[in-house]
């Protein structure tokens, strides 16, 4: 895949001397750098001028994150009085936005600024995590970094991966997940991870990757990166999310599941999630404008009680039943299998069990760490 290289850097004065900034600048010699007082003004102006979604990401902003880095995954929030089943996930955001162009990406209608932003105050992030983990020694935290950005797309520039892997290596009550659609794992391979980092891939059949996930690593590149991670002793996970309906979906997803398990040892996979396509109505309009021939438009989508557009229930159930069945057939008994952000009644039917709490799902997914 083609790795991200910006054409310009905006550098906040307050982070100019920090290690992450220095590393980015070292990795991008000769690039124009504009010093700025505060990224907020810049991002505000960029939002107002509304450049094209692709063009603007040519600028990388190195900024200070002012609020809390660590928070519960927003998927667990109640929307419109409705709550979905979630997996008790936590997120830290050290970057915002993504240079890849997945047709279905929610960032298109969620982030209102067009630049890629890296928060360079990594010390603040690590000390905040340290405080959280120490304050609740009896809780177990599964922490992801891929909410507002791809976890590893910028790693060759920022080196954030190394900082986090080494930080989590010695934590007893937490596990880190990098979620990516890239093959940027080289920076992780020689690290002492202590089994506390899982590298995971969002993954779809080749046909979907080629049609919908523009600028991402191919499925071959992703699986081969996963193999390299397994060789380096990491456990790896997969997110078949979003599941997208198209005429050949059964063949596509079945081959994908087989390919994953043909290449990755089942006991190296601690969890697999599935999630049927969902989107807000404004996102649906954006997709129609930006990707008029996208396969996203094929399935029958309706507004669910949480306000999100989802495939009609009959179609969701069919997708889930088949895909979950194929995964179960090949997965290790210890692999946690769950659906992301799904309606409780559908969740319950797919997994043939009473509706669980988020905590139950989270505990099942991380049971191998908690019992160790």
């Amino acid at each position, binding site marked *: 895949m083609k790795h991200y290289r910006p054409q310009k850097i905006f550098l906040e004065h307050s982070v100019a001397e920090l290690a992450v900034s220095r590393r980015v600048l070292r990795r991008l010699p000769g690039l124009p750098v504009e010093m700025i007082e505060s990224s907020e003004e810049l991002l505000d102006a960029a939002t107002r001028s509304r450049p094209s979604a692709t063009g603007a990401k040519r600028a990388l902003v190195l900024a200070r994150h002012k609020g809390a880095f660590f928070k519960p995954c927003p998927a667990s929030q109640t929307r419109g009085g409705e709550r979905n089943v979630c997996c008790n996930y936590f997120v830290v955001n050290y970057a915002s936005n993504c240079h890849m162009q997945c047709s279905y990406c929610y960032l298109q209608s969620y982030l209102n600024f067009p630049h890629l932003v890296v928060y360079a105050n990594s010390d603040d992030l690590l000390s905040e995590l340290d405080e959280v983990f120490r304050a609740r020694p009896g809780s177990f935290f599964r922490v992801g970094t891929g909410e507002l950005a791809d976890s590893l797309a910028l790693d060759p520039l920022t080196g954030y991966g190394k900082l986090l892997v080494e930080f989590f290596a010695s934590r007893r009550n937490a596990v880190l997940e990098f979620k990516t659609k890239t093959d940027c794992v080289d920076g992780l391979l020689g690290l002492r991870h202590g089994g506390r980092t899982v590298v995971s891939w969002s993954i779809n059949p080749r046909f979907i990757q080629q049609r919908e996930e523009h600028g991402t690593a191919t499925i071959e590149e992703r699986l081969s990166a996963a193999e390299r991670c397994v060789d380096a002793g990491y456990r790896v996970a997969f997110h078949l999310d979003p599941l997208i309906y198209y005429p050949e979906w059964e063949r596509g997803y079945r081959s994908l599941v087989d390919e994953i398990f043909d290449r990755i040892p089942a006991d190296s996979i601690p969890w697999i999630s599935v999630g049927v396509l969902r989107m807000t109505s404004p996102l649906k309009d954006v997709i129609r404008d930006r990707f*008029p021939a996208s396969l*996203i438009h094929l399935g029958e989508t*309706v*507004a669910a009680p949480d306000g999100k557009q*989802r495939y*009609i229930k*009959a179609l969701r159930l069919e997708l889930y039943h088949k895909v979950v069945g194929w995964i179960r057939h090949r997965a290790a008994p210890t692999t946690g299998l769950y659906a992301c952000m799904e309606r409780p*009644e559908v969740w319950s039917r797919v997994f043939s069990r009473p509706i669980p709490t988020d905590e139950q799902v989270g505990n099942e997914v991380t049971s191998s760490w908690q019992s160790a």
Partner: protein
Amino acid sequence: MNPNAPRPLHSIAVAEIDDSDRTYAIRADCEPPPELVRSIQAVGVLSPPRIESMAGGRYRVISGFRRLKVARLAGIESVDCLVFPPGKESTRFLEAVHENLGTRRFTDLECGEILLKLLESFGRSKNELLQTFLPLLGLKAEPRVLERLLRLARMPSVLKTALENWRSDLVLRAAGWSEPEQRLLESLGRRYRIGHSRQKEVVSLFVELRAARRAAGERAELQTIWEDSGAASVDLDSRIPQPERLERIVRALRMARYPLLSAQLAKAADRKRSLKIPGGLRLDLPRHLEGSRIQFQGSFGSPDELRRLAGELTRISEQAELRELFELL
């Protein structure tokens, strides 16, 4: 003395007023509403139009285009007007805007026309439109709002007139369609009384169907969709009364876009019928079958009636069709 001050109220011959000069008009067209026509026919023009004197003893209209049009059509020979000396055109236009602002709310299309005129005829910059004129019109000073309104105003006037009663967001969407597609929408609007929410549904179905066909690599012109969905043949069936025909057209489009959901809903309706729900009791499935609970409502006027309803509920609870309904949820 203020050179812009009006001369006293003058009775001006309607024939001397050139209302084809649209320099200060807010809308390209100006069909007067029937209420105004009835009022002027009954009592004449009560509120004086503002006009500007021009060379040759003629006048042009600053504001009051519709009043003067009705007066002309009603055969009124002269109207009391506020007459202004020739002045700076941009100032006069803004006077017209302010006068209208005081009496009514502009439509999106009118806002677009005002902004376009300020931009293209009176040399105002986009920044001025954003900072000064959007707030003046009660709109958010955002570039996307400005661009949307300018696009609306730049649409062909035929389309603007034809879709006058359609929601402006839908008209904007139709602005990117081909001419035959726009004509199809226009003819629908002309032949059926379509409320705003139904307009939204029809346009959404067209948009959704087009997107689905594009994704499938099929022909995606609306005329093809119109034909293939069966909507065209319903439209031509004059035996069906008009309101029902519109209902069936929408149903045809809905079935084309949501075949699986339509089949599920039909099955659910069939099972519901089989339950033979008595009058006084209502059973509602969740919208689009999304949800796991069925709601029922009932009313009763006496303990005996409640007992009868409870018996009916027990009977319904034991029917296989009720279980089948739950399987659809």
